[in-house]
């Protein structure tokens, strides 16, 4: 029996539903840390990103900070925070790590979403007499939403993959079979855990891809359907017609989402 078959046998063994480390328990822990971390990160990053996108100020700083934050190794940061905060505050240490991991993608999604909007759309809104708040809520936020959901998608995926290390500091999650299996040299268990994390990530990615599509405002969807063929899109781009700008706002998520 090859390792993959053994891993599947491990996954579907009835023992996986028993005890302290039953798979449903681990899945619940994994989702809990993912959701909590992404929500906290969104509360911090989305308003900040919108502010940057709306005012156009502070962009360089945000790019520099979020770029640098992406380079921070999560595992090292988590262990460092556990040491700094002490063994009684391990959940907080891990959550901070995952929040810091999720912020760059969300921040980028929030401000690029607003930045990608054609300035003439905003000028038109202003010319019709909208207040700044109305411009923000009725024009910028809806038009920037697909890119924001794209950022959310990237952040969620990274956090799901990284919550695996929570098991190293005794917080469980789907990383547990991996962290425990390596010293025991039970590679069916290690692979089984890895498969679970991958499947969970794929499901989450699929759901968020659907959400990303649903987030495109109805007006843009109609406009972009008109210029779906490459030739029409090219012609629209070279002519820089208003429909091209809407088109770019609608299709930008797939190309600009920082996965």
């Amino acid at each position, binding site marked *: 029996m090859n390792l993959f078959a053994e891993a599947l046998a491990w996954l579907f063994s009835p023992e996986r539903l028993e005890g*302290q*480390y039953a798979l449903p328990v681990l899945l619940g822990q994994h989702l809990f840390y993912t959701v909590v971390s992404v929500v906290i990160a969104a509360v911090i990053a989305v308003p900040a990103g919108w502010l940057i996108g709306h005012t156009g100020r502070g962009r360089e700083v945000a790019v520099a900070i979020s770029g640098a934050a992406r380079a921070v190794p999560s595992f090292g940061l988590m*262990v460092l925070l*556990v040491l700094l905060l*002490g*063994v*009684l505050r*391990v959940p907080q240490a891990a959550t901070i790590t995952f929040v810091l991991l999720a912020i760059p993608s969300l921040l980028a999604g929030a401000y690029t979403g607003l930045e990608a909007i054609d300035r003439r759309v905003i000028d038109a809104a202003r010319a019709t007499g909208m207040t700044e708040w109305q411009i923000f809520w009725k024009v910028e936020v809806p038009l920037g939403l697909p890119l924001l959901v794209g950022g959310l998608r990237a952040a969620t995926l990274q956090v799901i993959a990284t919550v695996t290390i929570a*098991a*190293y*500091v*005794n917080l469980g999650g789907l990383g*547990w079979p991996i*962290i*425990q299996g390596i*010293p*025991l*040299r039970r590679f069916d268990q290690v692979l089984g855990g890895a498969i679970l994390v991958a499947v969970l990530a794929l499901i989450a990615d699929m759901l968020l891809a659907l959400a990303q599509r649903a987030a495109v405002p109805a007006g843009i969807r109609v406009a972009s359907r008109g210029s779906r063929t490459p030739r029409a899109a090219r012609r629209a781009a070279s002519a820089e017609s208003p429909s091209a700008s809407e088109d770019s706002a609608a299709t930008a998520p797939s190309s600009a989402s920082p996965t």
Partner: protein
Amino acid sequence: MFTARKSRLALIGGIGLAASLVLAGCASSNPLDTPTEDGGESAGSDTIVIGSQAYYSNEIIAEIYAQALENADFTVEREFNIGQRDAYIPDLESGAIDLFPEYTGNLLEFYDDSADVTSPEDVYTALQDALPDGLTALDYAEASDQDTYTVTKEFAAANKLTSIADLASLSEKATIGGAPEFEQRPYGPAGAKELYGVDLAFSATGDTTLESLLAGEIQVADIYSADPAFETEDIVALEDPENLILASNVVPIASSDVADEIADVINAVSAALGADDLVALGVQSTVDEKSPEEIATQWLTDNDLL
């Protein structure tokens, strides 16, 4: 246009050359292969190559072997800090390393995880059978570096605990912390329940097991018996009268080619390496921050082996 094409050709040629070099490299040596003769030959037949794990306590023992052999006019080469078992066992089996300080129980687990022996003598006998041809286990020492059921002295006094069996009398269910794999070991919580009737919850405290015990997050901790914490902190390992825990005494593993030559010197070291020595040696390393060389020289001198 012409120059662009030329440079593209040059680029393709360069990539092709690089690829062929890489492929040639692959063909002549597979990096995953076990290194064989290289280490053995360069060291010469009279040189004893001593290895050690990337673990300070293990390195001190290796240094003690090295100085004892040098004192007996052997030429020694030190290959210390090799890493974990998976990394160095191939070198040991191939003869690239001649001598390695090991631990009876942990090494037996590596070769045969179905063995159900736990006492020092039984584990040593089982290990001798389990070792592949070409490796010889010399005499094991009284010193050991094995799992323990450890509590704080305060907790032990308050609950009158001396042995693992006494944990059964606790009014509340205690939690034992340890490395993740401890949960699955035969001497883990399930084993304690079977042998002593002690019901323990498990917490995978991993690298922070000692801190978790001192912070009161867990009541019992699996701390290795050679940990300097036994001298620096107020903790005590519970006795194990029924031999629940797999004994893991220090044992020199030698290539069979050189085992006879070095047996007298190394066995004398093992005979002198007492139960409490590893903790004391560890304290000199972690607290006094002495080098392995100093610690080894001092210990050998104290035991009249130098």
